[in-house]
């Protein structure tokens, strides 16, 4: 029998969303936060550029503009009630982070500093607006540290290096989770009234990615196996600027500070694709433009990368051409020193991994798999909803990148994920604790850990004819080539077939390590099974959607089709097949328009 623990609320994941949820839930309910990584290792710590909130510290701005930009950025697939809620909550939640001690950069008069980011505009002029609140280029690091510090201060209970492998549901309601303790290999059952999933994304499906090794989609895979659908999985964001071949992210803040993208001829090609905001168009738009430039042979030296240039000469030249001015009306110029101060980590990454100093040389970049717009379907209260009628599963919650509320729709704007994790992490904590107050524990089934054991035994007892690493590599390649920035029918079909073949071959994998302590081979292999499930659901959802919208761009259906496709995809994994159903987008007052930047 596994070890059994009982908590009113269990939070799975200790990134920004999980810590915020843990902080709030534990104010009123007995709560545990379970994480496969030490909390401060979570991927929130990698976020660089900023968190979006219309504080208006440097120029006019309003939450309504933020809302509209987010709706437009989502290519009208975002649920407008949720977007309104998030953008209205943004200023207060950013002030709350500041009150917790978060060391934001400051304006000369001591307020939180803000910078420009793609897709965030002054709705009257259409020009970029300074909305991203930042702490140098380590905003996510400071959010993660600050929230963890607050958890220490408030004695939040953690189970660090406990890997959750299954979700226990009884009578159609949440009843807990099963986790493996890394240090011992033992299974633990966490019996709970409410469970919050905050497990982050799954960029490791793709070959080139900005995402951590730990980004294996565990939350979505676990809930899929328990009959809960995954929403809008075809929408995965490719960030325009990853370090060539490595995928390490170069924040959009670089372009916010005046950096520009250049092709092999030294042209600032974004002029042609987004005449008003140019390099600060939405990510899907920029990634596609880059892809087209490279396809036309204008990659650097004909290769599959372009230059991102933040050298003062280039920045000052284009700022003058654009007529960019500072808040006081003086012309916008930068020095090498200022760049170093504002983007120290980016400069360090480039020096370390490329031997390139961005203050004097351009950076080689290519689009990199970055962010999951799709995930576990929830309503605006972060309750998990399990069908096209938005039926709530009692006691089940999800928040952060793992969830699909949906505030990002078909394409997320930069700075809106850090906002999402704190706003909806907090909601989840409050709502789960409130639910727990009024609910009793579901009875725990005797065989609660059986399904987990079966999964692990299968990995230990495979024939060994196949190697996990080969399967992972083949999946990543086919997904990057065919379910990437641009898609067509045949390619996606090929990817889907390939992933299905890989899933069959995966059954022949055998974990060599028979030990129990820190058996990372076992867990990495289990994570691969998650990635394969998510790749299948992604390819199937993408194949079915016969239009182009946001991050889902098809060569064979190049236009957005609101008549037939302004709806969310719900995908179930059933008996080795993907079943697709659809649900409407929630509209408030924003009518779909053509998206131009």
């Amino acid at each position: 029998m596994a070890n059994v623990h009982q908590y009113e609320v269990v939070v799975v994941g200790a990134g920004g969303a999980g810590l915020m949820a843990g902080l709030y839930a534990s104010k009123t309910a007995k709560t545990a936060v379970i994480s496969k990584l030490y909390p401060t290792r979570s991927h929130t710590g990698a976020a660089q550029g900023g968190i979006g909130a219309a504080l208006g510290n440097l120029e006019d701005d309003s939450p309504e503009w933020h809302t509209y930009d987010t709706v437009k950025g989502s290519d009208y697939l975002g649920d407008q009630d949720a977007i309104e809620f998030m953008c209205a909550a943004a200023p207060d939640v950013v002030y709350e982070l500041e009150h917790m001690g978060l060391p934001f950069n400051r304006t000369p008069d001591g307020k939180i500093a803000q910078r420009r980011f793609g897709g965030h505009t002054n709705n009257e002029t259409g020009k970029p607006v300074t909305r991203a609140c930042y702490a140098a280029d380590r905003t996510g690091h400071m959010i993660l540290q600050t929230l963890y510090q607050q958890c220490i201060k408030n004695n939040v209970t953690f189970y660090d290096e406990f890997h959750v492998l299954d979700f226990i549901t009884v009578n159609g309601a949440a009843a807990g989770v099963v986790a493996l303790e890394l240090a011992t290999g033992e299974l633990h059952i966490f019996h709970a009234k409410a469970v919050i999933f905050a497990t982050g994304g799954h960029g490791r499906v793709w070959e080139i990615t900005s995402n951590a090794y730990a980004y294996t989609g565990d939350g979505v895979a676990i809930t899929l196996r328990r009959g809960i659908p995954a929403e809008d999985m075809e929408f995965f964001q490719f960030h325009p600027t990853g370090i060539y071949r490595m995928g390490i992210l170069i924040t959009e803040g670089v372009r916010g500070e005046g950096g520009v993208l250049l092709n092999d001829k030294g042209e600032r090609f974004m002029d042609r694709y987004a005449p008003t905001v140019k390099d600060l168009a939405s990510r899907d738009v920029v990634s596609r433009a880059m892809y087209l430039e490279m396809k036309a042979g204008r990659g650097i030296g004909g290769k599959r990368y372009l230059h991102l240039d933040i050298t003062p000469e280039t920045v000052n030249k284009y700022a003058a051409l654009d007529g960019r001015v500072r808040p006081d009306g003086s012309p916008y110029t930068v020095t090498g020193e200022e760049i170093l101060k504002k983007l120290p980590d980016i400069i360090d990454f480039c020096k370390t991994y490329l031997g390139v100093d961005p203050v004097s040389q351009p950076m080689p970049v290519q689009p990199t798999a970055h962010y999951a717009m799709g995930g576990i379907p929830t309503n605006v209260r972060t309750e998990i909803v399990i069908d096209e009628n938005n039926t709530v599963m009692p006691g089940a919650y999800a928040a952060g990148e793992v969830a699909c509320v949906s505030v990002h729709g078909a394409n997320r704007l930069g700075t809106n994920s850090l906002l999402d994790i704190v706003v909806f992490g907090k909601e989840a904590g409050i709502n789960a604790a409130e639910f727990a107050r009024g609910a009793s524990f579901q009875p725990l089934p005797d065989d609660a850990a059986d399904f987990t054991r079966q999964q692990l035994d299968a990995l230990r007892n495979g024939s060994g004819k196949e190697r996990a690493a080969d399967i992972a590599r083949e999946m990543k390649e086919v997904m990057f080539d065919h379910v990437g920035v641009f898609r067509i029918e045949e390619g996606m079909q090929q990817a889907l077939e390939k992933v299905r073949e890989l899933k069959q071959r995966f059954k022949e994998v055998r974990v060599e390590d028979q030990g129990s302590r820190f058996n990372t081979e076992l867990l990495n292999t289990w994570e691969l099974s998650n990635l394969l499930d998510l790749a299948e659901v992604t390819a199937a959802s993408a194949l079915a959607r016969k239009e182009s919208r946001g991050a889902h761009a098809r060569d064979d259906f190049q236009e957005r089709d609101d008549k037939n496709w302004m709806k969310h995809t719900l995908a179930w994994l059933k008996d080795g097949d993907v079943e697709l159903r659809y649900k409407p987008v929630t509209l408030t007052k924003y009518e779909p328009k053509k998206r131009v930047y």
Partner: protein
Amino acid sequence: MQVTIDVFRFDPEKDQKPHFDQFVVEAEPVDRVLDLLEKIKDYHDGSLTFRRSCAHGVCGSDAMRINGVNRLACKVLVQDVGTRIKVEPILGLKVKRDLIVDMEPFFDHYKSVLPYFINDEAPPEKERLQSPEARERFDDTTKCILCAACTTSCPSFWSDSAYVGPAAIVNAHRFIFDDRDQGAAQRLEILNQQMGVWRCRTAFNCTEACPRDIHITQAIAEVKKAITSGKLD
């Protein structure tokens, strides 16, 4: 090119004592040492055990001794260390398996210095104001990723693991010199104790080891000065 890599191995479930395993792997000069460890785990020996996540030096998972010095495996390239590489766990914390050490004592030291914002006054409606200069005062120590490379390179910590260690002091510094915070006196009192800052013998190993280039020795000196002078200038 080919790289020969000797890796420290110890599995308390089956080994009496530690040993080294040697692997020869194909590598590019720009490969990270972490890439090599991954390759070994994928294709040579699945039981090789280490922590990692972000793979670009920001999560603090993979501090280890690489050719005798504390580094993040994901931030050291083959071209930086050559084709003979020796990888060992960081020193001064109990080895749990291969390159994984027990991080609990490290986090306990961290937690002991009140590493969180303290200010009991009701906050204003908007942000607390802070000048750019005041913000700059503690900028360096906000970069810490708690990887333990500094603490486990410190001779004082090796000789007595009760010493709070440089990482804890760095995180105390981050709050002591934040003019919005009101907990400096409490923290300085903690660090003035026997196992606090005075254990530091200014060996500079910590500063050398820090993958975030934090000026740790200087931060410790500033904390010492604040204790002796009673002032936070």
